[in-house]
């Protein structure tokens, strides 16, 4: 077989074959995304009650969007918020990823546990926690500062774009960690060792070698965090809406869920969403440039790949102080707040009086039928969505990075689009598609599978970004060797690529599962009866002013799932070690 391959001229210009099955796998989610986008564009040209004779075609939505001075204020707020979010998330997430993967810091499993288990805490609680810390009227830090320095007014205000960006950044530091940790893990240490041999110090090595090598992963993380910052809903909703500080996501939410007079303005949402496709296109082009120059970062090869770690020595304690502070501020404090709120009859700042009122009333009165319905649907989504995302994303990434198929640019573009679009827009597209296009022919409306389809479409971008980055770092000569040895494309993928990609696949699986587990916006928009999810149950309590009941359900959810996630991580780490 080897001889046959060597004799073949194809060996000298080896190009993987694009199988029709792989192409179909990649095209399926792209078709769904295209359908959602098409529905959104269609809606952007309509006004009035959709699906009725009152709906008319018009350009008014675009005129309304561009002539609304309020929207420009919203865009400015969103820009400040996103920039703050990105800076905070990078400043925290990147060093922790580096510490966990490139140094000898002890307790790495604990670091992973901290960074991932904290994701179980919904953003609404992080926001509520920070309300009690830095709110101008009830934040204890503000009260303390006012008393200490005799100030006239509170020095901190969390209900500003910068304040909200800080809280969102704390939450997204875990995303940066997940996105960059696997990149640090796959990085060839020989270049750093060479730098050391040539006399470069620690900081200069970081600056001249480590950071340039990490650039694609960092850029991917930045793009990802920026787009989440633009689209994120929960923290701006909790901290901003009530204080009249609006972001793009809350602006869209208010257009779709008018709090008072009028019908939902799907048309305005569609017009904003259509404009955001242009933003998505720009970001895609930017990322594409990185991808095209990706060969410069191919550092993992079949020979000589051996991760070496930087000895931290006494600096380990400093590293752990940093991680511990982050864990306390962003995870432990909100978790304590959840416990406190779950045990109190109504929401009030902690005091001796409130401590006397602690009880289990919210647990004994829990609506188990509803909670179990939510748990069942969430479990279904957590099992199926990551699996589908991995299958589709692998097909897309392989086509984009490895093949010479002409469709790859279009596929890459379409796969990235959902990343730059607020999930609410995808949800609206899916809702209108299920209601007015598919109707009873394909009974998706009110089904958990409709939510699953949107989740898969929304998560494809993240998964392909991560897989693209990892595929870029696996040199083609490994696949060429397999090909020369007579392995088919499918067996090459199974025997060569998948084992090397296992850490990335695992982190994508976990991250997708966690995001699905806590996702709220799509679930709220598409939830009807039978398809209500666990986070939507929590939201329904919170939205109706039942913060304490919501806390009780959140606590239950966290307690139930935390050991499973921890066990999963432990198994994951063990399999990597064994590998």
């Amino acid at each position, binding site marked *: 077989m080897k001889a046959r391959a060597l004799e073949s001229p194809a060996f000298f210009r080896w190009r993987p074959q694009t199988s029709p099955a792989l192409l179909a796998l990649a095209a399926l989610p792209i078709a769904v995304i295209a359908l959602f986008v098409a529905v959104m564009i269609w809606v952007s040209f309509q006004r009035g009650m*959709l699906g009725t004779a009152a709906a008319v075609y018009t350009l008014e939505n675009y005129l309304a969007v561009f002539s609304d001075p*309020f929207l420009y204020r919203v865009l400015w707020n969103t820009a400040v918020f996103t920039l703050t979010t990105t800076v905070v998330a990078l400043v925290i997430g990147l060093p922790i990823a580096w510490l966990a993967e490139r140094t000898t810091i002890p307790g790495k499993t604990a670091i992973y546990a901290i960074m991932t288990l904290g994701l179980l805490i919904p953003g609404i609680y992080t926001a509520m926690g920070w309300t009690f810390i830095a709110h101008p009227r009830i934040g204890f830090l503000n009260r303390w500062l006012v008393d200490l320095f005799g100030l006239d007014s509170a020095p901190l205000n969390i209900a500003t774009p910068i304040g909200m960006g800080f809280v969102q950044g704390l939450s997204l530091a875990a995303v940066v960690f997940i996105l960059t940790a696997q990149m640090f893990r796959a990085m060839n240490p020989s270049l750093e060792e060479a730098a050391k041999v040539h006399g470069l110090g620690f900081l200069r090595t970081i600056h001249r070698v480590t950071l340039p090598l990490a650039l694609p992963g960092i850029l991917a993380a930045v793009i990802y965090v920026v787009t989440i910052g633009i689209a994120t809903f929960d923290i701006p909703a909790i901290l901003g809406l*009530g204080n009249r500080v609006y972001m793009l996501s809350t602006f869209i939410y208010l257009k779709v869920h008018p709090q008072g007079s*009028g019908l939902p303005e799907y048309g305005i949402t569609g017009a904003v969403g259509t404009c955001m496709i242009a933003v998505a296109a720009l970001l895609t082009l930017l990322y594409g440039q990185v991808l095209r120059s990706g060969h410069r970062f191919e550092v993992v090869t079949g020979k000589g790949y051996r991760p070496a770690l930087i000895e931290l020595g006494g600096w380990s304690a400093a590293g752990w102080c940093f991680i511990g502070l982050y864990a306390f501020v962003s995870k432990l404090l909100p978790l304590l707040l959840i416990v406190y709120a779950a045990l109190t009859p*109504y929401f009030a700042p902690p005091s001796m009086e409130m401590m006397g009122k602690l009880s289990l009333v919210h647990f004994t009165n829990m609506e188990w039928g509803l909670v179990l319905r939510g748990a069942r649907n969430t479990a279904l989504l957590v099992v199926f969505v990551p699996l589908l995302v991995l299958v589709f994303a692998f097909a897309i990434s392989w086509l984009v990075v490895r093949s010479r198929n002409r469709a790859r640019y279009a596929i890459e573009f379409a796969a990235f689009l959902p990343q730059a679009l607020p999930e609410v827009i995808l949800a609206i597209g899916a809702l209108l598609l299920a209601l*007015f296009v598919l109707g009873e022919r394909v009974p998706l409306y009110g089904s958990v599978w409709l939510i699953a389809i949107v989740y898969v479409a929304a998560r494809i971008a993240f998964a392909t970004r991560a897989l693209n980055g990892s595929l870029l770092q696996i040199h083609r000569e490994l696949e060429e060797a397999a090909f020369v040895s007579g392995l088919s494309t499918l067996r090459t993928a199974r025997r060569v690529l998948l084992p090397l990609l296992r850490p990335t696949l695992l982190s994508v699986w976990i991250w997708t599962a966690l995001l699905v587990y806590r996702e709220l916006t799509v679930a709220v928009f598409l939830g*009807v009866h039978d398809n209500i999810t666990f986070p939507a149950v929590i939201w*329904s309590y919170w939205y109706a002013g*039942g913060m304490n009941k919501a806390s009780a359900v959140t606590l239950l959810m966290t307690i139930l799932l935390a050991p499973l996630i921890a066990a999963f991580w432990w198994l994951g780490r063990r399999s990597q070690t064994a590998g």
Partner: protein
Amino acid sequence: MLARLQRARSLWLGIGLLLASSAPGYGASATLTQMIEGAKKEGVFRAQWSQNTFGGGEGFNEFLAGLNKKYGLNLKGQFTPGPDMQALMVRIAQEAAAGQPSSTDLYMGNAQALFDGLKHQVLKPVEWGAIVDRRPPKDQGYDAIAADGTHMAIATAVVGIEYNTNLVKGADIPKRLTDVLNPKWKGKIASTPYAAGLRELAMPGFLGREYILDFTKKLSGQIAGLIRCGEAERLTSGEFAMLVLTCGGNDATVLQRSGAPLAQTIVQEGTVLHMRYAAIPKNSRAPNAAALMAAYWMTPEGQALLWKHDGLDLHVFPESHMKKDVDQVRAAGGKVVINTPEWLASLKGYAETQKELEKILREGGK
């Protein structure tokens, strides 16, 4: 012999009456009997409204148990918390337009949402008079049962100012609307994003459009934020000292029972009665069960459960708790307006005024 026969007939008549009175639908109209039979076939009753309305799922379970007991049914219930009243009506209208069954078999909501429902013609007329145990008395010409049968009021919420009793005490408790403009409250109070109460006060015959527009501009500079009715915990937490104005002080009534520092005051100028209505969507999967549930709420037991779970009942009934609030305002010379879909439909410029008020409140801050 004749006397014995008469005694025997009387005895049988008595037994017959006793049996009839213990059976479901005693004194029932043909409509009620048909509905009970229809409900038995429907089997499942799906309900959706906000979790903080009518006791949410906990309240629903008790309502369903009462309904099953009263009409001899064995309905299975499925309650799912839903969006706010107007958003739910929009959803029902969308589902109707798309030929899908309604998210909820029974719609429960306010006049504004019903006004939208009537506009989109998605509500099914019901012969309420034939199925309720007691017809609600009229209140100064107001009839809780709509003339066209599309809706029936089942409870009353009284609009006022809700406040944290730890932060607002004694002489600080507002008596007039303008009291909330006192500089000491600047940056400490909230209003609603949908101008609850203000939109009705702005109507001719009440405080009027110009007066309320001017007041709202001042209020917008005074408030620290906008919260929804039902977010009373943002008052108990101390984040805001007052909510100007509420959709009804019933959440204060419910939270007070657990010791929360919360109360509502009604201003001297008057109040709006935000009625809570029941209506059956045309695309309901269980219209009979839904109508029976609404009828059950009109019974003394149903009213007592509404009071227990949501702190409100229908003010026209003599045993009503809300009647006391309404009588108090009237006795003090305050004006009382009952918010109905028909009243909203009769007003010129209501929707425009509401939008204007919402914009002032929303954009008053940064």
